[in-house]
């Protein structure tokens, strides 16, 4: 199994402040963590590797300090890490981000399964995972709560998995996709992309040997030139969406307690409903 896990480094708080001028996240003074949903993706990738063998490659797009997130991923059991960092990528929306990640995955070449968290806790769009699969033109399943099994359809007696092209469709993955009430069981040919929800597993803590390995691990760094991406296709320029305004919802005003007997209160309530709400 060649597994690719996409992660994002996010501020360690759900109380993200937003720069009112640029409408972008204010990262200064906030500690960074791996997006919690991506921790489930990483854990699932590592478990699959432990069960089926193979390799987990973790990739992220972000500023140079996102390297810390990749080292943490290695300490948890990832084998390789790729940082896509380039000033030209600043301001990329989910379209430009998923294009960039897809290009990086194409450059990696071999893969059976791509795993992403269902969304990042800072932007909450849940679009990058599906975006990658669209750019790569592979199937996707979002909100996966369980991987039931990975089944090899054709027994390949010759050729180790690493020589298999990503498009042989020789295996399928059977997953449970979370719905509002219950779940759907789906079978999808590999290679494919899944995004996972927190119900899928309980992420492990790093091991000391993993941490020591992470400290000295080589992190591959790619810029847009390495990926053959044109400058105008990414960054603010390459982003078809614009965030016009981001704001905190106004705080809820305190309620009103009506006084008097039932008759009076009902009359007052009807009057208020008519004038204020209806």
């Amino acid at each position, binding site marked *: 199994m060649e597994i690719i896990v996409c992660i994002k480094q996010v501020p360690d708080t759900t109380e993200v402040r937003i720069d009112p001028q640029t409408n972008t996240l204010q990262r200064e003074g906030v500690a960074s963590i791996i997006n919690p949903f991506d921790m489930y993706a990483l854990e699932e990738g590592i478990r699959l590797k432990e069960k089926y063998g193979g390799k987990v490659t973790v990739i992220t797009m972000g500023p140079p300090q996102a390297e810390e997130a990749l080292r943490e991923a290695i300490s948890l059991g990832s084998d390789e890490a790729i940082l896509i960092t380039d000033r030209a990528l600043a301001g990329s929306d989910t379209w430009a981000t998923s294009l960039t990640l897809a290009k990086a995955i194409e450059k990696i070449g071999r893969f059976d399964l791509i795993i992403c968290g269902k969304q990042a806790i800072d932007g909450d769009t849940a679009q990058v995972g599906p975006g990658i699969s669209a750019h790569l033109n592979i199937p996707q399943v979002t909100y996966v709560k369980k991987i039931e099994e990975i089944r090899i359809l054709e027994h390949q007696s010759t050729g180790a998995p690493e020589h298999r092209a990503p498009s042989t469709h020789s295996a399928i993955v059977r997953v449970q996709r979370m719905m509002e009430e219950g779940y759907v069981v789906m079978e999808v040919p590999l290679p494919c992309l899944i995004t996972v929800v927190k119900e899928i597993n309980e992420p*492990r*803590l790093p*091991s*000391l*040997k*993993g*941490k*020591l390995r992470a400290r000295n691990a080589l992190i591959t760094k790619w810029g847009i030139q390495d990926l053959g991406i044109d400058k105008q296709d990414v960054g603010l320029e390459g982003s078809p969406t614009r965030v016009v305004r981001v704001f905190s919802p106004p705080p809820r005003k305190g309620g009103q307690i009506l006084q008097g007997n039932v008759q009076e209160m009902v009359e007052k309530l009807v009057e208020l409903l008519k004038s204020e709400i209806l």
Partner: protein
Amino acid sequence: MRDYLLTEEQRMIQDLARKIAQEKIRPVAAKYDETEEFPWEIMRILAQSDLFGVFIPQEYGGLGGGVLELAIVTEELSRACGGIAVCYAATGLGTYPIILFGNEEQKKKYLPLIASGKKLAAFALTEAGAGSDASAIQTTAEKKGDYYLLNGTKQWITNGGEAEVYTVIALTDRTKGARGATAFILEKGMEGFSFGKKEKKMGIRASATRELIFNNCKVPKENVLGKEGMGFIVAMKTFDVSRPGVAAQAVGIAQGALDLAIEYAKERKQFGQSISSFQGIQFMLADMATSIAAARALIYTVCRAVDRGEKDIAKESAMAKLFASDVCMKVTTDAVQIFGGYGYMRDYPIEKFMRDAKITQIYEGTNQIMRNIIALNLIKETLR
């Protein structure tokens, strides 16, 4: 000052142990205290994180650290639960005889299993009639050709029944007294080796304490640690390196209690203000923190001396254990005091710290025995 001159690697170990303690142990500490079940789920987490390997040499599957690394982990775990911490620390105590006195085959056989956390270890010296007077042990080991037959009962053995590997001290020659004792490595499941009932304790209730019963227990002669007759040397040299670990447990329990006391003092309001604004409380907190810092500095200093290979450390090792455990008892008692009536209630986590603290003044040599060791060494030093 936070790091007490720890290396980058030691800080990494400390951070990981702290994360496990705060995220995984703290939420379940009260549960294990109540149920007295053995915390296997936590042992598995510690194993997966490689924490059992921190004090074991690299050539035997460990990370190559020493007693300072063992102390750092023990301290952090104790901050969350002194009982769960001792399950870990007692494995260190049971393993050190093998590290210090094991031959190549013994080390190769046992240390990797312990380093990976696949097997817990335990150390067995104490008997019903042999506590502070360890030389009064009655368990015998009679040589029968290729093996020894062990008979007798060990008492209050931490990790007893849960551990797979035991270092056991037994008499091979009754006539020679202390010089007639020998250390053996025993494995759970050996013929004639069974366990007594699980003791009910005041504190450290997550840990298992049982009797080890030997009834014509057959132990191969390859399992002798060191040489016949070296049993007490094995025990004493082991205690010299393990006592800073008990001290670390004590300082961890004290730190955990102080953390809770500060938190509570800030929240609790009396006379219209938070009780942390009262000098009476402030001075208690200041004294608690100062004595903890002093104890920790002493422990780390002794650990570093051990890890540098210094030989005569019995006195300093005893000092660390004595001082840290007395600090622990005082700090946890004061922490309960700061909590007032709430502190006495089992709904609040602080009384457990006081119960857990007491044992640190008793086991691995009572504090009275510690003072004996210190005083004897002081006098011996002046005779040189």
